[in-house]
């Protein structure tokens, strides 16, 4: 009996690793191991044989296109994540407010706003061009003659498309957090004489903090996919205002400029890690 017990214990110790093994193997093969090689190559010449020290990093950091792409990517993230979080919170609150709450209309709206996440970029690529071109439908509607896709306006078209695509999904995430706030808190606040605005700032916002982490992470994750929308808005050769890191990486990839590509990948990875560490410290 004792031997049997020990065997069971051993099996229980091995179990998690057996469950994880296929996934870990794949991740090691396609990300972790080659990432080590990426780091090594970032210090080497094109053939990956001779060490060149920090020359690749220097070349990347001095590259004007790289700086532009970093600036645009940072600017984009800094504008659209807060904008998306705020607007989708408003949307979630609107869908839960009194006359709408729990009605068929609320569900219809929810479906409507979730729908854009299902619309493939390629399906609306041509439509977007027709809508936003200088002689396009939007200009016809507004009676203007603005080149939305060729100028700095392209940046805002990109932001609008991003919010359009993700607002529904993010508002459902918020909605989960709003559901988790105990009703008693609102009742207590009402007894203390707090109005709707005061209830929102004193109860809703602080109670939403745990949800903010999850929602923020998923929003951030989706900004990484914004290249698709940029491609949708402007194709492979976008105006300067929406030239993103992914465009630059594609160009260097086509040119098979591996040393610079590796150095840039390491830099972006470091920046992502630093950002995450910053968020963690901020949370504490």
């Amino acid at each position, binding site marked *: 009996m004792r031997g049997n017990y020990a065997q069971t214990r051993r099996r229980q110790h091995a179990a998690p690793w057996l469950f994880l093994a296929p996934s870990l193997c794949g991740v090691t093969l396609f990300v972790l191991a080659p990432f080590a090689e990426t780091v090594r190559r970032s210090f080497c010449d094109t053939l990956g044989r001779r060490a060149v020290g920090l020359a690749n990093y220097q070349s990347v950091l001095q590259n004007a296109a790289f700086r532009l792409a970093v600036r645009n990517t940072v600017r984009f993230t800094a504008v659209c994540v807060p904008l998306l979080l705020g607007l989708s919170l408003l949307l979630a609150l609107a869908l839960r407010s009194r006359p709408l709450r729990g009605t068929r209309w609320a569900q219809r709206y929810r479906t*409507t706003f*979730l729908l854009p996440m299902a*619309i493939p970029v390629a*399906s609306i690529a*041509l439509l977007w061009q027709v809508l936003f071109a200088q002689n396009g439908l939007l200009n016809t509607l507004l009676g203007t003659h603005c080149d939305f896709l060729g100028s700095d306006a392209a940046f805002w078209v990109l932001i609008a498309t991003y919010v359009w695509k993700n607002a529904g999904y993010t508002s459902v995430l918020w909605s989960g957090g709003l559901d988790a706030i105990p009703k008693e808190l609102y009742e207590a606040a009402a007894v203390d004489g707090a109005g709707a605005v005061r209830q929102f700032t004193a109860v809703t916002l602080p109670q939403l903090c*745990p949800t903010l982490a999850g929602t923020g992470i998923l929003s951030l994750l989706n900004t990484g996919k914004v290249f698709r929308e940029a491609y949708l808005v402007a194709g492979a050769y976008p105006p300067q205002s929406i030239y993103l890191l992914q465009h630059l990486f594609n160009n260097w990839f086509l040119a098979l400029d591996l040393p610079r590509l590796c150095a840039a990948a390491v830099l972006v990875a470091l920046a992502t890690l630093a950002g995450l560490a910053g968020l963690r410290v901020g949370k504490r």
Partner: protein
Amino acid sequence: MKKWFLLPFAALVWAPLWLLATAAVTGSAELQLTWGPALAGKGQAAWTLLPSWPTLQPILQLLLDTPEYFAAFWNTCAQVFPQMAGQLTVGAPAAWALSRLRFRGRRALQALYLILMLLPFQVTMVPAYLTLNTLGLMDTAWAVVLPGAFSTFPVFLMQRGFDTVPLPLLEAAAIDGAGPWQQFWRIGLPVGTPGVLAAMTVSFLDAWNALEQPMVFLPTPLRWPLSLYLTNMTGQDLALTMAASLFMLLPAVLIFAFGQPYLEQGILAGAVKG
């Protein structure tokens, strides 16, 4: 009154879909007249609520006389479904272990998976390329399928679904003699199904929409999926392109309609935990 005030925003969703649907049944001559100016840069594009001469001609031409379209459609399927099957068979057990099993190194692995999920494609494309190139898989469907199958994003979503399985239930099963595998197969999967389906829905939409992966890993246009084929279909017949756009949209909307309840459930289950 209040239920109407969101309508203008809803219109922002429905108007493009309406334009897409009506354009697909408009003849190319008429479309050239109304939308042509926007692309040609001469004259001014015009709005039409309904086509004056509705016709199925573009759709028929697409379905009966455009072999490239079918090739691209097939490429998409060959890249999306194996990838999803991989995510399911590899990701679900991993998510189960990270969510419900206690072992040393669990927190570190959770952190690792989260970081891998958040790394932008620019970072992971270089390592993936190095491996694919070594294995000689570049420019094949595997180049898109394999890195996607081991993506940690579905693991993250499924993990949140499995978090809802009560631990006492598993302890009771263990006392009754159920091994780790039985606990996963008999309790975890049935109870965690909404989370798994939510993850699969998101994965499908993501893979159906994939652009940067095929762009980098598939240099030959013959192997391009629909997403890439369509975005490069410029200069072709407008009406035909719109019909193709509509037919690319339909599977995504169907899967979305099927997955939406799980999506809301799965998201909610995760969000409450924060």
